[in-house]
């Protein structure tokens, strides 16, 4: 792996347990008490320091952790990638965010590079500030260009938390308290072409989906599904939007996940790893078809945002793209993904009572446990063995493994060994949990998120009181 510590890397950043208690309290008071409790219950209340390559260090214990969450796929080029760092430090010599309404060589250069790497005729570029913002931009573009209102999204879809992206989220969990959201959004089961065909009409502006559903628990779209969607869109004048925020930039073993099927969407949203883990950046690519081009010509200030498409961000993202291209990182993602998936499948065969299914594409791998309560327990066990992997808040039985795609063989060996060790720990705990789970009502209690937070939080406090060392 080409990474290492930049010469200037600070080694400070350790925290005493007393300091941690202080910062915990500050975070709880001024950011979110519930979040702290929730993380604490699963031993995930860790402060990250020495964020380097595929690892970070627990600021209190000093323990090195393999980052298999990476902000849900935002650190593809690894953390503190020295070349991206250098590009950013150089940018800081003479740049700032820049005027959003003006052009600069930095904006033009990044757009040109992104356009040249994009699949098919996705040649047009718009800037956005983050994932949600990019999806809002994409849906606005589709509605505006087609003059239609309906949007077909997928059940369990995850697109973000801003107004449009939240309206396209196919999970009740994220929507419930904020309804009513935007009318005109319908949800069809993922990989169900018939459902889309029944729904799509000449009133449909867009069909939006993730080529691999991430937050839902890693469900790759089949090639037939995607090709079928393309055909429906072509027949009915619908714009096809791919949310490649998690899947793009090498994650799935191709530079863009849509390359697996060869299906080119009309609009593609990118964010997360464009940031190089250092500076926010997002973009929306579009095919320069007359419908879209005419619309944008009439809207010279379409979706301008103060923070999106910043000069510094463009310099960083340009380097990220160059780095991924020069190192053909998607090939490494394919190879490492195959290794990880193979190892997890072995574990599934050996532990049918713990692991139910393994799914994935490239280095976007998900493991589904047999029960929801295993998710938080595994997060904790993995943490003890030096792997940071978070269970999905609204699907706790599913855990995602998305380490930086720069990960090398030795590092992958260690990640796999840690997962094996964590499963072994689970095996010793599971008989107790399973006996309890057989008592009527206990399983549903164990699987209840609030009960988990309360129960695991309680156990956590007992551990601390009794001084049990982890």
């Amino acid at each position, binding site marked *: 792996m080409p990474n290492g510590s930049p010469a200037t890397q*600070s080694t400070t*950043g350790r*925290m005493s347990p007393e300091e941690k208690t202080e*910062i915990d309290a*500050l975070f709880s*008071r*001024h950011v*979110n008490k519930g*979040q702290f*409790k929730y*993380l604490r219950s699963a031993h*995930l*209340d*860790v*402060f*990250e*320091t020495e*964020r380097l390559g595929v690892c970070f260090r627990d600021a209190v214990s000093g323990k090195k952790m393999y*980052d298999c969450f990476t*902000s849900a796929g935002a650190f593809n080029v690894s953390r503190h990638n020295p070349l991206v760092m250098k590009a*950013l*430090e150089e940018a*800081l010599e003479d740049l*700032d*965010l820049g*005027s959003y309404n*003006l*052009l*600069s060589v930095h904006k*033009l250069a990044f*757009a*040109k590079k992104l356009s040249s790497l994009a699949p098919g005729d996705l040649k047009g570029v718009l800037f956005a500030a*983050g*994932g*949600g*913002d990019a999806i*809002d931009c994409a*849906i606005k573009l589709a509605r*505006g260009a087609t*003059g239609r209102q309906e949007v077909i999204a997928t059940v369990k879809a995850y697109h973000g*938390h*801003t*107004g449009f992206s939240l309206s396209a989220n196919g999970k009740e*969990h994220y929507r419930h308290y*904020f309804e009513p959201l*935007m009318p*005109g959004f319908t949800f069809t089961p993922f990989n169900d072409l018939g459902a889309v065909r029944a729904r799509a009409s000449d009133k449909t502006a867009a069909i939006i989906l993730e080529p691999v559903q991430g937050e839902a628990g890693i469900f790759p779209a089949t090639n037939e599904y995607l090709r079928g969607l393309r055909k429906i869109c072509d027949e009915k004048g619908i714009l096809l939007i791919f949310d490649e925020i998690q899947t793009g930039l090498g994650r799935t073993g191709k530079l863009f996940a849509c390359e697996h099927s060869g299906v080119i969407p009309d609009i593609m949203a990118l*964010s997360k790893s464009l940031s190089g*883990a250092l*500076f*926010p950046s997002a973009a929306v690519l579009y095919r320069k078809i007359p419908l879209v*081009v005419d619309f*944008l*010509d009439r809207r*010279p*200030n379409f979706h301008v*945002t*103060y*923070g999106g498409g910043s000069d510094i961000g463009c310099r960083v993202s340009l380097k990220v793209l160059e780095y991924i291209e020069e190192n053909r990182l998607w090939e490494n993602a394919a190879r490492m993904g195959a290794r990880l998936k193979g190892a997890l499948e072995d574990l599934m065969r050996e532990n049918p009572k713990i692991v139910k299914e393994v799914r994935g594409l490239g280095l976007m791998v998900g493991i589904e446990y047999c029960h929801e309560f295993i998710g938080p327990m595994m997060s904790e066990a993995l943490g003890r063995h030096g792997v940071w992997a978070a269970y999905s*808040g609204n699907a706790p039985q599913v855990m995602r493994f998305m380490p930086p795609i720069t990960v090398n063989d030795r590092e992958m060996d260690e990640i796999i060994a840690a997962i094996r060790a964590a499963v072994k720990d689970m095996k010793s705990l599971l008989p107790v949990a399973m006996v309890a789970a057989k008592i009527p009502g206990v399983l549903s209690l164990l699987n209840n998120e609030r009960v988990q937070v309360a129960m695991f939080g309680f156990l956590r406090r007992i551990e601390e009181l009794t001084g049990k060392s982890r």
Partner: protein
Amino acid sequence: MAIETQSKFGGAELVTQGRLERLHDLGHDFLEAKREGAYIYDEQGTRYLDAHGAAGVFNLGRRHAELAGELKRALRETDIGNFPMISLEKAHLAKALADFVPGPLECSIFSVVRGEAMDAACKVARGFTGRPELITVDGGWYGQTGFALSLSERKDKDSYAPLIPDVRVMPFGELDAARKAITSKTAAVILEPVQAENNCRAASPGYLKGLLGLCQQNGAVLIVDETQTGFGRTGSKFAYEAGGIEPDILVLGEALAGGMFPIAATLLTQRVNAFMNAHPLIHLSTFGGADVGCRVALKAIEIYAREQPWRNAAAMGERLSSGLRQLIRQAAASPVRNVAGNGLLLSLELASPEAAKQFCKASAAHGLLVVPGEVATNTVVLRPPLTITPEQVDEIVASVKAAMESM
């Protein structure tokens, strides 16, 4: 000319014909290169005084040395960070904001851009009250994301419809209308204390107090968007402070980190944040409150607290507006009809949107970067850095004079 410019930029990927024409119309068809303090330069070295300031993001001037230095230092110690995790940087920034911002706004939700921060505010208001109805005033401009767009007044809004339901618009400044509109079904009332994009229309202290009272009577929350007015722009630390109120939710835009990092925030009282505490991780943002960005914002807050730029904004705003008013009085047939606004958030009213564009172009030709208002498109907004000097104020006045004369 337009075609010539296109070839100069290359950039067909990014630059649509429509955008190119717009840039040309405003005299902004150049590449932004060097930037420093109150100025930017194009590739040929032509200097412009930046009185656009990315709509007030660059409160502390372009490339503030301390902010650039802090970002450089912070990058060596931290990065964006894993968004669901607890974070030292987020905790410190949230604490600093709680101390800096007047009133009991103790808790922060972080975002990347203002729109996202407004969307968060609306969501929390709905979640906290258990009511859907959002009431705003006409003439507002809150950002590009879904909720923010639904609240904003803009001609192209229908292109993206249907937007967020249960959004009602009441006439700005009319308390009687507010009394009828705000009921026990209302989740939130949302407004900017000064509508920067709408000829700097300002809410009076009486109106703000009246709205807050109506919200309190009806169990609704008051959301104030200070993206363009916060940190001293209008001559006080926050515009709501001058209005003598304390909102339940405050939206702060990218001026939070002085234009060196994209970060915005939604500040809440402990009372309102109880909803977020009960439902953690229900509203997420990968880049919002990036650890490294929190460090830059923390430094910006330190500078804001130390320099108290609202004092300079009040004094320089006075100098600028009186200089501009004098120009209008003295001109035989002034294309600028009126000057509105407070502090260093000023708006020039022209006869038509076309005249406003012409004025921007003429200003650019005389070294001044300004843009028309987004809502009142016949206006031109002046938002120079809060750190501007008397000489630079005089330079703006001289550029405006030259622009007026050339029209």
